[in-house]
């Protein structure tokens, strides 16, 4: 039996019908057409499917679409829009720009998940050490880069975000975006 799921996605109200067993990642990709979120392992291991749920990184292959009812989801498509335009780098989120500049991706399959987890990490720790970045990205696997450049990219993005005074990249900004779209106060 299908049910209607209403939620906020990337700051906009969204709805669609889904079976209770529909995983959020399939709802995002197949029902809402947001294919930036990838399915890698489908077994809760690789983190390619990571999105922000009320500002916190979660694996959307391990969450039902119905569990997101009434909540705010941010996918890679909405990452840059979490920041005011002046904090973006040529329209990109500083994380996206830094992955590009530092060669933090090769095939790019893991990248959307890496970006979303890193966004959560930086909202908790604006100035993480290399060890904290590696620890924070533990739930995201990359088969190409060897991680070195991913770590470098996150450090560069952290630096730029601090310089721009834009502390909240994940958590609070995503919550506020969700609340604003629902017409409520953050």
């Amino acid at each position, binding site marked *: 039996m299908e049910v209607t799921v209403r939620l906020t996605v990337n700051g906009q109200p969204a709805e669609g019908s889904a079976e209770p067993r529909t995983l959020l990642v399939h709802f995002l990709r197949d029902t809402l057409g947001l294919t930036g979120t990838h399915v890698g392992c*489908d077994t809760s291991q690789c983190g390619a499917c990571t999105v922000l749920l009320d500002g916190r990184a979660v694996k959307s292959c391990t969450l039902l679409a119905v569990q997101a009812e009434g909540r705010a989801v941010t996918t890679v498509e909405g990452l840059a829009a979490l920041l005011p335009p002046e904090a973006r780098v040529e329209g990109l989120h500083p994380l996206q720009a830094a992955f590009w500049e530092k060669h933090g991706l090769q095939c790019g399959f893991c990248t959307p998940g890496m970006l979303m987890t890193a966004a959560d990490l930086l909202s908790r720790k604006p100035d993480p050490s290399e060890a904290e970045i590696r620890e924070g990205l533990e739930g995201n696997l990359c088969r190409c880069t060897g991680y070195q450049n991913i770590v470098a990219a996150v450090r560069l993005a952290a630096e730029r975000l601090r310089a721009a005074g834009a502390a909240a990249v994940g958590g609070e900004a995503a919550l506020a975006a969700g609340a604003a779209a629902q017409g409520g106060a953050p």
Partner: protein
Amino acid sequence: MIPAAFDYARASSLEEALRLLREAGPEAKLLAGGQSLLPMMKLRLAEPPLLVDIGGLAELSGIRLEANELAIAALTPHAELAGSAQVAEAFPLLARAAAGIGDLQVRNLGTIGGNLVHADPGSDLPAVVLALEGRIVLRGPAGERVVPAEAFFLGPLTTAIEPGEILTEVRFPLLEGRTGTAYVKHPHPASGYAVVGVAAVARLAPDGRVEEARLGVTGVGLHAYRARAAEAALRGRRPDASAIEEAVAHATDGVEVNGDLYASEEFRAHLCRHHMAQALREAVAAAA
């Protein structure tokens, strides 16, 4: 992988969740963070006909400091345990164990209640709840009952919870005197679960002897357990290297030790002694 079809109900209160469970019968399952249940359903190892989602219940959230205990509600996510100043202050080993669970995404959704009820033989939190002598509060059709941690874990994925009951909170008595704690884990390199995890609480007398040692062990047996014989061997002794070595010789007394592809029974028992000694040294140092 998609789970088998099921009905879904989101409970708007604890009372409603209890009623939904009562009406649905023993096959229905509660859904908290979903970080153990959904992977099992995707693999079709579990096919509950109904999920009762308690994920949004505010009455099952939060950490409360009371006169002589800290009450941690069932839905408190691992990330909150890991980041809470209150938890770090009262029970540093709990914050440490929670911070070492899985990864950031799992910690954001997974809850203490789900971790304890799921009772994977390699779960981290059961060891800590045992060493802290946590009391597990269950609400069911017949009202509330409180189960001491040591009577809660019965086997792999098996606890003392009855169908229709909901774990509402865990109550931890605050530590007194010169007490130190530690949690030491050997994570499985792929899954991150504990191959061996030892939680230690050590209380020292003014003269430096061990007044009380409490040891919770996970990963080693079919379920998490208190290493009572090792605890007894330390009582009244100075916690020096030889006392600790003699105590950890009893680390797995009376326990059927797991063996698997990663760690044979013998290796796991060795790891258990090694990590128990390390946990004791850290707990004693923290107490001193």
